[in-house]
């Protein structure tokens, strides 16, 4: 009996990997073949590379979201902060003609400040994360519209913009192939975020404190962990990832869209974290799971998209997937 329990526990712990394998196999067997070459459109590096590129923004958000969720929090503002960052980044490089590195630093700092603000409100004023970040979600979206004057920031949109036509070089660079396996810089940002935050979560005191707070905040406080500071740091890091994702979004869309960039992305990011297996109750989960969760969503979306499946069944399938993932997660708690 004990052995069986251990086996189920083992399977439960690695269900993320199992699900990933299943989805990958689905991709192999159910993606359409190319009309020109007769080969699967799924099982080639170009498509895989595309998938990593296309879902990178969600993955970057999910990486930051994982930290917050492990500490039993939630950040609903990441989509809007992404939108704000995309708009700000576009303004800096297109309207003001800043150099790319300076614009990236400024954008990420601004997004970090938004995350930190959420963190301070939650930690110091003991506000529920859901409410505090809901507020920040509206503030960030408003800020995006405010700095842009409500119009999309693109070359030539106003006469005084520094760039009047053509793409700023950084946009092309971010979305172009590199020599490393043809990976695009946006994909690399995603992978680097995952690795760095994985190390942070796995091998540092900060990471252990996050788990402790998520497991039992009062116990963590009593054992001398500076709960407030750790939380503020988590939300700040979450803001930073949203800022990076915003830079990626602006580069991909080649403009800053204050109204629609990042709209509802927070939900996809939370879904990726949950499907990976990180518990919304806090204290359990990890960065690798989130990486898998992102890929699982990405693969399923890609298969459905390659098949040209309509929106209605797509939404239902994605919804069912999230519910079932949480169902399994709840059963493990017993």
């Amino acid at each position: 009996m004990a052995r069986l329990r251990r086996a189920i526990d083992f399977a439960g712990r690695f269900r993320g990997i199992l699900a990933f394998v299943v989805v990958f196999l689905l991709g192999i067997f159910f993606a359409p073949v190319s009309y020109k070459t007769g080969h699967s459109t799924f099982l080639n590096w170009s498509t895989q590379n595309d998938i990593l590129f296309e879902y990178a923004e969600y993955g970057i958000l999910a990486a930051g979201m994982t930290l917050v969720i492990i500490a039993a929090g939630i950040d609903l503002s990441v989509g809007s902060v992404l939108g704000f960052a995309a708009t700000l980044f576009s303004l800096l490089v297109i309207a003001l003609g800043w150099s790319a590195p300076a614009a990236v630093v400024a954008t990420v700092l601004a997004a970090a400040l938004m995350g930190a603000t959420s963190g301070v409100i939650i930690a110091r004023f003991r506000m529920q994360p859901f409410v505090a970040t809901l507020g920040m979600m509206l503030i960030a979206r408003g800020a995006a519209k405010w700095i842009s004057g409500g119009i999309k920031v693109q070359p030539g949109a106003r006469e005084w913009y520094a760039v009047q036509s053509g793409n700023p070089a950084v946009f092309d660079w971010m979305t172009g192939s590199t020599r490393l396996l043809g990976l695009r810089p946006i994909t690399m940002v995603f992978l680097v975020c995952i690795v760095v935050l994985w190390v942070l979560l796995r091998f540092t005191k900060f990471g252990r404190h996050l788990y402790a707070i998520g497991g039992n905040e009062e116990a963590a406080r009593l054992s001398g962990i500076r709960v407030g500071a750790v939380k503020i740091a988590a939300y700040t890091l979450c803001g930073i990832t949203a800022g990076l994702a915003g830079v990626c979004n602006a580069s991909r869309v080649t403009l800053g869209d204050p109204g629609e960039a990042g709209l509802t992305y927070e939900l996809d990011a939370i879904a990726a974290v949950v499907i990976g297996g990180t518990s919304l109750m806090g204290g359990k989960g990890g960065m690798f799971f989130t990486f898998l969760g992102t890929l699982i969503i990405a693969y399923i979306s890609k298969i459905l998209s390659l098949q040209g499946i309509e929106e209605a069944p797509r939404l239902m399938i994605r919804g069912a997937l999230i519910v079932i993932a949480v169902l399994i997660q709840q059963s493990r708690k017993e």
Partner: protein
Amino acid sequence: MRIIRIASVLFVLSVLSVLLVAGCGQKQQASGPSLPRPGGPTTLGGKQFVIGMSQCNLGEPWRVQMNADVKAAAAKHPQIKMIFKDAQNKTTVQQDQVKEFVNLGVDLIIISPKEARPLTRPVADAVAAGIPVIVLDRKVEGDKYTCFIGGDNVKIGEEAGKFMVKLLGGRGKIVELKGLMTSTPAVERHDGFMKGIEGSQIKIVFAVDCHWLEPDAQKEMASALSRFTEPGDIDAVYAHNDPSAHGAYIAAKNEGKGREKKIKFIGIDSLPHEGVRYVKEGLMTATFQYPTGGAEAIENALIILKGGSVMKNIVLGTRVFTRENAAKGGEAL
């Protein structure tokens, strides 16, 4: 522990449902990856063409109509197989879809872009990969596309203006319910209309941005009615789209003075289940069609696929639907 097992079963079931749905899509394409078709369907049974269509947002009725028009036109040609994709109003998704069509090796791509700039490169890449691209309704930047088909909002606005002059005998007070004025179609529909009523005694007494939305139009029209309370204060309403005209009608009706019967309502778009129906039911006096170009897209696609050449930019005309001609399918202008 039983719950775990039940949950696992559910998970497998969900995966199977994905598989099933994906499988259904597969069947139409005749074979799975175990049966590769070198050369693709172009070699099967003479000339078979696969056309991929990426629609930016199927949440809008007019765009649903565009897809329906494409589908209907394609159905007349058994050698055409259509694959439809809906980008759900997301620019990045639409970029991905164009790429997917290229990877899939379709023979031609039809795209109705959400946004010009971000889709310029994907479209250019597809053309560079040897796949002709027909762009519908909204343009992409530059000239790296095969063919653009779209309506002319300035002309439509102008025709609406001329119609209004005739309708009111060259003199009257009207309300203009505008579309979202940060979008080009609204600006063009306004400019065209002003050109159309030029030199007449028609005065716009109340003009407001209704963002293309019927509820907004209803609210704004209610304000207009309470500002201009006498029977002769408002002779007609020019709305940039039919739902706004309909919203204005409802507002007049709700006022309860019977003014909805006196005021003439004119709109744009002419979807069969919206504007054209309202005209047939007598709620609206006229609606001007903003053509989807769906049928023309398939027509030109066939010419391109058979190796012919088409015009680079095709501007579609408009039709007017009134109570007299609606049953016959309107009148070309």
